[in-house]
């Protein structure tokens, strides 16, 4: 076969530009948004973007949906499932979702980077991040990490706290998402959710324990977020959302979790009832949501003092691009004054 550069070059001129325009249109059409479900009559339609695949750690929101707590506040809340790489804070800031939830530290770091978001309430008083270990080589505090080998998320804030504030030295391996190495090495420590991995390791016959990373020197919240413009335009919607979410969380952890679990199981057929029960028990055992009542903590509470301490810590270890004030990251107008009665 002979090649025909001259022929082809002369040939398509004029056609090519039109084809390109058509191709571009097709590309844009492919990126179109899917149709939104119509809101229930009389209710304000809002969305909540979660940070991961549906799981019991989102149970309070699903409970509020299932038991009509949001509807009682005049809201039709659609929970958008998250997953790896879901950009909760960017989506809140861009108005793709009215509400989001994520780790409190990440929210502070994002605000310092200029992402316009605002905390409106706590989902959990303490983040469920923990360290899973074999009971043959236990961890009693973060200081016990000295000299150990640890699989952890690169760049995790808590790692820098342990290294810079506590001066603890350890060997770090990247966290790749499987537990095979941990299962095969009695001395290895792996970052986990205390509500999650320990269950599966025990199920496979390993004798393990889990240490909550949150401690007196480092205690990140998990928070509910919205954007400042939405907050300014619809304070009543935000108030209703926070109220109903807290009601959902209290009911999910102290009442019958079945309504939320049914919704979650429909989205996650791989989660067994036993696992969900374990997760709920861990949230209660570690008081992740309710907090420590002896310290005056309660479900939904955010305090300026603790956020202040958190910001100072993040500043000390150098992860904040610019100094931020508590009023830049959170509003306390929607926090209930007293412990909500279950």
């Amino acid at each position: 076969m002979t090649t025909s550069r001259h022929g082809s070059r002369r040939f398509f001129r004029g056609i090519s530009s039109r084809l390109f325009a058509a191709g571009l249109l097709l590309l844009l059409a492919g990126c179109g948004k899917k149709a939104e479900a119509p809101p229930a009559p009389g209710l304000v339609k809002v969305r909540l973007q979660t940070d991961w695949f549906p799981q019991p750690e989102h149970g309070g929101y699903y409970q509020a949906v299932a038991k009509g707590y949001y509807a009682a506040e005049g809201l039709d809340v659609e929970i958008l499932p998250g997953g790896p790489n879901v950009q909760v804070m960017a989506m809140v800031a861009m108005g793709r979702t009215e509400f989001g939830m994520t780790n409190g530290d990440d929210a502070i770091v994002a605000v310092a980077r200029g992402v316009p978001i605002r905390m409106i309430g706590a989902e959990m008083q303490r983040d469920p991040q923990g360290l899973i270990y074999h009971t043959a080589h236990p961890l009693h505090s973060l200081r016990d990490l000295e000299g150990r080998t640890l699989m952890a998320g690169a760049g995790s804030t808590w790692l820098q706290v342990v290294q810079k504030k506590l001066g603890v030295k350890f060997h770090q391996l990247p966290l790749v998402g499987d537990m095979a190495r941990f299962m095969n090495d009695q001395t290895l420590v792996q970052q986990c959710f205390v509500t999650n991995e320990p269950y599966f390791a025990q199920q496979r016959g390993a004798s393990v324990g889990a240490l909550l990373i949150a401690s007196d020197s480092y205690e990140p919240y998990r928070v509910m977020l919205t954007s400042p413009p939405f907050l300014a335009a619809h304070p009543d919607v935000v108030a209703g959302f926070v109220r109903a979410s807290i009601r959902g969380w209290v009911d999910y952890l102290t009442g019958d979790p079945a309504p939320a679990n049914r919704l979650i199981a429909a989205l996650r057929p791989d989660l067994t009832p036993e696992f969900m029960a374990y997760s709920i028990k861990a949230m209660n055992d570690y008081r992740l949501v309710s907090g420590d009542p002896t310290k005056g903590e309660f479900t939904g509470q955010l305090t300026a003092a603790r956020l202040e301490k958190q910001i100072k810590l993040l500043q000390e270890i150098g992860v904040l691009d610019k100094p931020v004030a508590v009023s830049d990251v959170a509003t306390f107008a929607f926090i209930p004054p007293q412990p909500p009665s279950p």
Partner: protein
Amino acid sequence: MKKMPTVWLWLLPVVCGLLFVALWYGVRRWSGLQSWILPTPGEIVAAAWQERARLLAAAGDTAVGALGGFLLAATLGFGTALGLGASRALRASLWPWLLVLQMTPVIVLTPIIVLWAGPGLPGIVTITWLISFFPIVANMTQGLLSTDMNHVALFRMANASRLQELWLLRVPAAMPFYLAGLRIAATLAPIGAIFGEYMVGNSSGGTGGLGFLVYSYNTQIKIPALFATALTSCLLGFIFVAAVAWLNWAVLHKWHDSFERDDH
């Protein structure tokens, strides 16, 4: 060359597969690894059977993402190649950037894909498209440029219009190249979709596809089931490749030399 008896064409891959399976069992036996590190083929098949409902549903989800990305790549690749084949200037301006697009690790683009296309299916289709687009463009462009000059001269002598030359000569002549591109893309599309589910999935639709199951089985330490997702993904890949092979036959068997024909 003397033709190999057909029975051998069926036997050889089977023998090869059996040898591989035997080697696998051997490695497992001599290494002393547990089933949650290196499951045996038997354990994987058993897990696949046990999880068949979930795997099938997930494979269906993955197939949707893979097909969406594949079709997008097939149409856009066709259109882009027409443009590139037509204009040398366009080729010079765009070719390096098409290479850049292909060489950019998709993980770098995942945040922007999630924001623009959205998590779940739109993001998964976008990633699949990104991964399978380039081989189609590269092959189709080469095909358009490789049209036999004698045929071109014949068309010009007969005063054929440009459009006639395009649709009646150049595009048909480029078909074997285009189909070769589709064949490569067909092997990439299911992998692209699974990668997409792993990177930007949100378990929408209740199963979240095979990429989501990779997460799920990994955290739950169900390693034989994890390997079963690979088995399922291979089966899905074979379906894609078979579909393109059929298309290849349908388009080419009447005239192209790669098929045995009666008129030889």
